[in-house]
């Protein structure tokens, strides 16, 4: 398999960049591109303590697979792709998503990695609830999904 997609429950193994790079490695590859999404301590002027990720996992994983297939169609079937998104609560500094693309050439690896994150952010059934230092919590306003019809 040249694609790995996963929604990972926090409390099990944390997301791991080394695991992603190892998966996309291949003897024919000259490039590996990596993207890591991390919980930051400030959003729109509010101090953030952590973020909870809610995920409709079956549909999310199917969507990740479709997005990977699109990337391979655009930048080559020899791409190796890794997608893992966290589900559950993360503190500031926690890794929410790890993406990696391995390819014979850097251009395709960078482009595919960028494509994965941009598409996942707007198409995947994942929701972020921010927890603030003042004790308040709020669901982040996001992107409305499109249906097939």
């Amino acid at each position, binding site marked *: 398999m040249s694609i790995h997609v996963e929604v990972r429950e926090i409390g099990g193994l944390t997301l791991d960049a080394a695991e992603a790079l190892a998966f996309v490695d291949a003897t024919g590859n000259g490039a590996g591109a990596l993207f890591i999404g991390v919980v930051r301590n400030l959003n729109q002027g509010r101090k953030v303590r952590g973020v909870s990720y*809610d995920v409709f996992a079956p549909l999310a994983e199917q969507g990740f697979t479709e997005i990977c297939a699109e990337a391979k169609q655009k930048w080559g079937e020899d791409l190796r792709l890794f997608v893992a998104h966290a589900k559950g609560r993360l503190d500031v500094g926690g890794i929410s*998503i790890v993406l990696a693309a391995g390819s014979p050439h850097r251009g395709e690896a960078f482009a595919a990695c960028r494509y994965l994150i941009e598409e996942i952010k707007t*198409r995947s059934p994942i929701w972020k609830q921010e927890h603030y230092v003042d004790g308040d919590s709020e669901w982040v306003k*996001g992107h409305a999904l499109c*249906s097939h019809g």
Partner: protein
Amino acid sequence: MLVKVQMFGAFRVLGDYLELTLPDDANVLDLRLSMQRQLEEFELTELLELSKFADEKAVLADSDLCKNNQILAILPPVSGG
């Protein structure tokens, strides 16, 4: 027919699931309208308008037919990554 809707994101305030009884020939639009009536007191009707329904395979159109004992998910605007 009975349709169970799994809650996600801001809809979690309603619990994990909402069960709705619908006419036998109901489609997703009928489900949406039925939910709308129940959500008025929670000030979630605007969010419902921006939301989609889905099964485990696809996001559904309002014209898609519901099935008895079906479990669907309500998907408010997404914010992953």
